[in-house]
């Protein structure tokens, strides 16, 4: 069996620091502001930015009385948990070498739903179970931040430490002065972002401003999803965080058939502590260092502590580092040429069009977003590459 060692630089120190977005003029209506925010997302990743690829994220989900409000259907809690499941999948999809943990807060207490871990299945199972929980009392921002902080403060300095709060209530019941805690969080370089489900609360504004996070309030479900997805992308790393080399293993998937004589069924290490799933399997991923077997990646080896990932995982996070250049926006009137979008072949009807700087092909707004958010490569350039 061939084993491949690889060492990977997780923190790519690149030349430029992130610039504040200059997304141009915002128009009066909120719709336009939202549209601009969409564009901003496209823009933000640009420039050569150092990103915190190895993320440790705690999601705090408010489960207080106000989560029973039915302005999101069927109610805020169910809707939030549903979106969270989606978020967790997306998160691991885009951040293969990161971890997540979930905390809920109700009745003035905070409770860890899942610990920091890299296995999406476990989190999703926990989220599914949480739907049946009741929503009572008030949340405690202080307690939940504190719980998250206790774990995050032991994380190494090169990782990006983040907390995402999904806050439905308008009040928080705190045992101590929260401003002290905010100072501590700031000192520990923990970034706290908040998504509000009802309105702008002062303490959250301060919290996010001081710790460098973002604060958004949802308008409806689709906006909620959009805001949540903003947190899927790795944030720019703070300039002071360290760089270090991380050892990683890239185990190959070994498939053994029953007919194979040498094949011996064995237990996966990750199933040692859970009794629910069937134990013995034939194939799997074997740790290149200690040959412990795992059925899923990414995972941290329980025996030797090596981070195990697969190469496609890493490749998927590659586009964060070398994102597609933003397309140039020009008003439709100024554009002379065929009014068809290069990608969808639809007629260009919106008030502005987008031109790829490399291949000079023209795209509509929707395709521009699709290309930057999903494809991460320009279809026009791909074509010219092939022909040349």
């Amino acid at each position, binding site marked *: 069996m061939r084993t491949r060692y690889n060492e990977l630089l997780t923190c790519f120190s690149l030349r430029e620091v992130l610039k504040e977005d200059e997304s141009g003029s*915002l128009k009066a209506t*909120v719709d336009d502001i939202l549209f601009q925010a969409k564009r901003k997302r496209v823009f933000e990743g640009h420039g050569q930015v150092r990103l915190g690829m190895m993320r440790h994220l705690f999601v705090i989900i408010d489960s207080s009385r106000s989560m029973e409000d039915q302005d999101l259907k069927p109610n805020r809690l169910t809707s939030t948990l549903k979106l969270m499941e989606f978020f967790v999948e997306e998160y691991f999809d885009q951040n293969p070498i990161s971890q997540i943990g979930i905390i809920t807060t109700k009745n003035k207490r905070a409770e860890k739903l899942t610990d920091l871990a890299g296995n999406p299945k476990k989190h999703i199972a926990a989220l599914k179970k949480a739907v049946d929980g009741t929503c009572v009392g008030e949340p405690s921002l202080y307690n939940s931040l504190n719980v998250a902080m206790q774990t995050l403060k032991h994380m190494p300095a090169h990782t990006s430490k983040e907390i995402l709060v999904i806050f439905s209530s*308008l*009040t928080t019941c*705190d045992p101590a002065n929260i401003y002290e805690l905010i100072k501590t969080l700031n000192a520990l370089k923990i970034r706290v972002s908040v998504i509000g489900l*009802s309105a702008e609360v002062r303490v*959250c504004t301060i919290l996010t401003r001081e710790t460098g996070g973002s604060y958004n309030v*949802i308008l409806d479900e689709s906006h909620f999803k959009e805001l949540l997805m903003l947190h899927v992308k790795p944030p720019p790393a703070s300039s002071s965080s360290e760089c270090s080399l991380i050892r990683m293993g890239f185990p190959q998937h070994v498939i053994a058939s029953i007919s194979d004589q040498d094949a011996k069924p064995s237990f996966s290490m990750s199933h040692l502590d859970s009794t629910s799933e069937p134990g013995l399997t034939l194939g799997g991923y074997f740790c290149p260092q200690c040959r412990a077997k795992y059925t899923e990646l990414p995972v941290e080896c329980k025996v030797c502590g090596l981070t195990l990932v697969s190469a496609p995982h890493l490749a998927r996070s590659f586009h964060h580092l070398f994102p597609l250049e933003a397309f140039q926006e020009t008003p439709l009137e100024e554009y002379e040429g065929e009014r068809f979008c290069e990608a969808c072949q639809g007629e260009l009807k919106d008030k502005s069009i987008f031109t790829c700087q490399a291949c000079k092909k023209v795209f509509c707004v929707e395709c521009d977003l699709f290309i930057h958010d999903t494809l991460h490569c320009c279809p026009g350039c791909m074509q010219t590459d092939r022909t040349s």
Partner: protein
Amino acid sequence: MKLNIEGLLVYFPYDYIYPEQYSYMLELKRTLDAKGHGVLEMPSGTGKTISLLSLIVAYQKAYPLEVTKLVYCSRTVPEIEKVVEELRKLMDYYAKQTGVKNDFLALALSSRKNLCIHPEVSSLRFGKEVDGKCHSLTASYIRAQHHSNPSQPVCQFFEEFDAVGRQVPIPPGIYNLDDLKDFGRRKGWCPYFLARYAILHANIVVYSYHYLLDPKIADLVSKELAKKSVVVFDEAHNIDNVCIDSMSVNITRRTLDRCQTNVETLQNTISRIKETDAAKLREEYRRLVEGLKEANVARETDIYLSNPVLPDEILQEAVPGSIRTAEHFVGFIKRFLEYLKARLRIHHVVQESAPQFLKDIYEKVCIDRKPLRFCAERLRSLLRTLEIADIADFSAITLISHFATLVSTYSKGFTIIIEPFEDRTPTIANPVLHFSCMDPSIAIKPVFGRFQSVIITSGTLSPLDIYPRILDFRPVTMASFTMTLARTCLCPLIVGRGNDQVAMTSKFETREDFAVIRNYGNLLLEMSAIVPDGIVAFFTSYIYMENIVASWYEQGILENIQRNKLIFIETQDAAETSMALEKYQEACENGRGAILLSVARGKVSEGIDFVHHFGRAVIMFGVPYVYTQSRILKARLEYLRDQFQIRENDFLTFDAMRHAAQCVGRAIRGKTDYGLMIFADKRYARADKRGKLPRWIQEHLTDGSLNLTIDETVQLSKHFLRQMAQPFRRVTTRTFLSLFNDLNQA
């Protein structure tokens, strides 16, 4: 930036200007050009102060002979300080742009309490004590005594100022109260007297209303201000009440008792002086025979601001013989006092006019009208002669003498009401004599008559036409400006019904109704669940608030509200209220959220701003009509109807709506701020009420936001709050503004 306003070059210390500021300056310039008076309304938070200052300063620089002085009147010390800071910014900008060193002198003036640097005197807590103590150290005869007897204490700061301070002018610059004190300490001069002296040649003076409107103070401080001054009354929506208060006198039994003691002191002093220094009294007598001619000469040359307490006619005459000697005068006062005491010994309410009162006093104790008119002047002269140092003790007798002068001078515009007890406590005898002014124009008339331009401005002056009518003047400009907003950051809603469709109103007949109170409670409960941080709720009166809160407590509504937010209540006790306010702000700050229950016309509704998270919603429970059963109010309404043809209902509605607008306006203090304004009374939906709200609120009041139910209100509010929470950057406004500028310059 530099602006061209109809040919006038205006320096504006900011990089961008709102369109309404531009039009405000335009109107202001036209007013100054016409040398007339103006009424201008512009919402707070749009930079009213800086627009005013930059235009008037530019005008002063361009036409130094037309406008020599700007007198800026504000209400409170913090507001005065804010104006001075804006002015400093403007002057720095001038210096930077033109490269010429600033040659303007601008200063703030406040009471001795805020300006005193004497170590002993300034440590006193109350303004009155400071004034009294200061007087006892600086009066002319005290200082004369100090010459002969160095152990007599005097204020070294005043002495120093008196010796050199008047010759050396204070260097040009911008002085707020602290700067004046620093300057005073450095030079060893008294800052208060320095400021009082310096306002005569200062280009800009910032001080409180009272220095111009209260005849007793105006006479001392402002009478020598030049005629070519521009006077600005900021936050002037209550100016009529200030005028009325400054001319009204309330006399209780306690006042009379203290007056009695004063009289006795006077008597003792007189007999003592008579033994030691009879010549002094004779000298005073001679002076009084010659009359108040000196004052008359001064007035004829028009240097002085005329004093409404001291009417023109009496200056022509000498003090009548019956009160010329000190003993006679004291006897006279004593008789007057006894008469007042007798009048207060009644069991039913008496209301009479000034002539009726004079007739009665003549019949009962043979006091003529003429000597009464000289009472105030005669007392002042006597106090001066007797060298009584501590005038603070003599406030009671001064009050009585003012009353005597006023009642005998004005036969119109005043009424006398004697009430044996308060309406609320009919069993406790507490007789009060209200001598109340009903015509605010009496106090402000000299100001309008004397200065070439008087500008009345505020955030809420609607309806504009009523101010010229009640203040009796002719403005050359009247304008109301609205806010240009990058987003609709205010959301006025009129809630008229509960979810059970029962009308919500504080109308007298239904205000005790169980259903109304419950619906009000439900409204507050629902709002407390959806509005973040702070909510301020205003009631129409303290009694009404007490009743409602008690009822909410019984119904358990209060308990439910407390699950969402903490509750604080404004009381009539100032210390308690400021404590409640402090805690309220703390609760808003740390995310707990709070509700402040307060009263329209109270301290909170007038002076406290609830910026950003301190006031995300204001709820006005009911229409804040003034207490209509009050006899003083009834008399005033009658007077307004007879004299100015203003119907009772019009005035009452105007008064209620200006207070309602003041209350809800507390929440929006700038363009980045946002807040809900909830009017919880179905009567607000009527055109006559709605039409009296300021234009900038009316604009956002659509047909869809009238007569809502609680549920509809909640839905609209939720939507509004979410919209407002979306990221909003300065960029938005700025592009808009530069656009406007391009238009303007093109």
